[in-house]
């Protein structure tokens, strides 16, 4: 199969650390195959920078299979680039044309401080999970998987919410830097299952409180998060979270 090679101009955000101010730096990359992934293209840029004695561009990545939630990048004005329901690592260079200029920015939110270049600190999500994204189980032998009857629709909805990989694209896309799609996926996932029932009320209240403490904005239901989510988490989860919050808040002590 023949490959199409392309030359591209990259405008990449470079920033030494959280304390310094960053700026865009323009790089030219040549001979990029349309069969490469976007991150492979950045690898080539970094090889070139290292060979020339420069500092490689820092960016997050891990599995490169679209399942770990580690990759980020705001590409040409959209988190994870132009394709729908896709992570940056699964974005391929055939999405771009020869001679195109690609603008690459980090996730922008004060709750996701820049570590270096395109890498941001998303540990705020971990702390939100720690605040309530867990269930209580009995110690001892593992319970048989089928011992708890779960309605098919609830199981499907919980699974769809559990698809969230916590990449933070929702925060990056939201004009308010709100983490509500992420949080609603985590709350819905457990609220829909019997295993999540014991902490159902305290979970939503604690996780919302932690989200606010981390400095994320509030949701205005614009839908930008849902449109960019690589796992197509539905915005209906946000409405479910609101419902969980309202009933838990009104009935708590």
């Amino acid at each position, binding site marked *: 199969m023949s490959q199409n090679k392309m030359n591209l101009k990259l*405008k990449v955000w470079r920033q030494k650390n959280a304390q310094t101010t960053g700026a*865009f730096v323009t790089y030219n990359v040549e001979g990029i195959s349309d069969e490469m992934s976007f991150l492979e293209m950045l690898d080539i840029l970094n090889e070139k920078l290292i060979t020339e004695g420069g500092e490689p561009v820092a960016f997050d990545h891990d599995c490169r299979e679209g399942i770990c939630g580690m990759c980020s990048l*705001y590409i*040409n*004005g*959209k*988190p994870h680039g132009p394709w729908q329901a896709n992570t940056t690592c699964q974005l391929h260079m055939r999405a771009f044309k020869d001679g195109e200029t690609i*603008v690459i*920015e980090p996730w*922008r*939110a*004060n*709750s996701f401080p820049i570590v270096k270049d395109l890498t941001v600190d998303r540990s705020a999500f971990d702390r939100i999970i720690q605040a309530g994204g867990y269930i209580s189980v009995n110690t001892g032998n593992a319970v048989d998987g089928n011992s708890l009857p779960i309605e098919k629709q609830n199981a499907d909805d919980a699974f769809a919410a559990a698809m969230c990989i916590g990449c933070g694209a929702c925060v990056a*896309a939201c*004009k*308010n*830097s*709100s983490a*509500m799609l992420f949080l609603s996926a985590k709350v819905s996932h457990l609220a829909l299952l019997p295993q999540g029932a014991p902490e159902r009320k305290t979970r939503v*209240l604690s996780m*919302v*409180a932690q*989200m*606010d403490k981390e*400095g*994320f*904005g*509030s*949701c*205005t*239901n*614009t*839908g*930008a*998060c*849902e*449109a*960019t989510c690589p796992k197509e988490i539905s*915005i*209906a*989860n*946000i*409405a*479910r*979270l*609101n*419902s*969980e*919050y*309202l*009933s*838990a*808040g*009104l009935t*708590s*002590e």
Partner: protein
Amino acid sequence: MTFKQMFTSSVGKKLVMAFTGIFLVLFLVVHAGLNACIWAMDGGVMFNKAGHFMGSYVVPRVLEIGLFLGIFLHIIQGYMLTLENRSKRSVGYAVSYKDGSKWYSRSMAILGTILLMFFIIHWKHFWIPSRITGVEEIDLGNGFVVHNLYAVMQETFQSLWVVIFYVISCISLGYHLAHGFQSAFKTIGVHNKKYHVLISSIGYGFAIVIPLVFALMPISFYLHWVN
């Protein structure tokens, strides 16, 4: 969790916006319905009676206090949320993400500001003269004297600029409702698909019909469709 904690969290603040928004939506129905009396083609008799009822009886007057509280809460909370949300991203993007959301969903504060300017002028035109500075009165027979608000409308809407301003404000209201109506119900937790589809459809219909009814009022007077 105290009520204060509940309604001052990020979700709670949105709940306040949603509840006040839904209250204001109900008010719009009442306001549009009563004002539609101008089309009774009776020289404003029915309209002036309706205006008299709203201004003279205890129930509408008590509701009016609630209305003002609702409006101010909605406006103040809306501005505070907008400023707060903007502060969450100190460094913006070079290329902004517009494809994922509607322009009017992202512009609720601007649309709301146009509506606030409209309210100030609208109050100056009708509410302040009726409640404070006084308007001409008319005897509807048997000593039943009421404010002639119909004449105030007739006079106000002779100016083309006023009519244009009212129509622009109604368009802003339409877009504000196109997002706000369905968003309010999502915020209060309506997540069932069947209700979501129903509420979205009603919301878009409401966002077209109510502003259209309001916009036709100054137009009707300006073009002398009503006598």
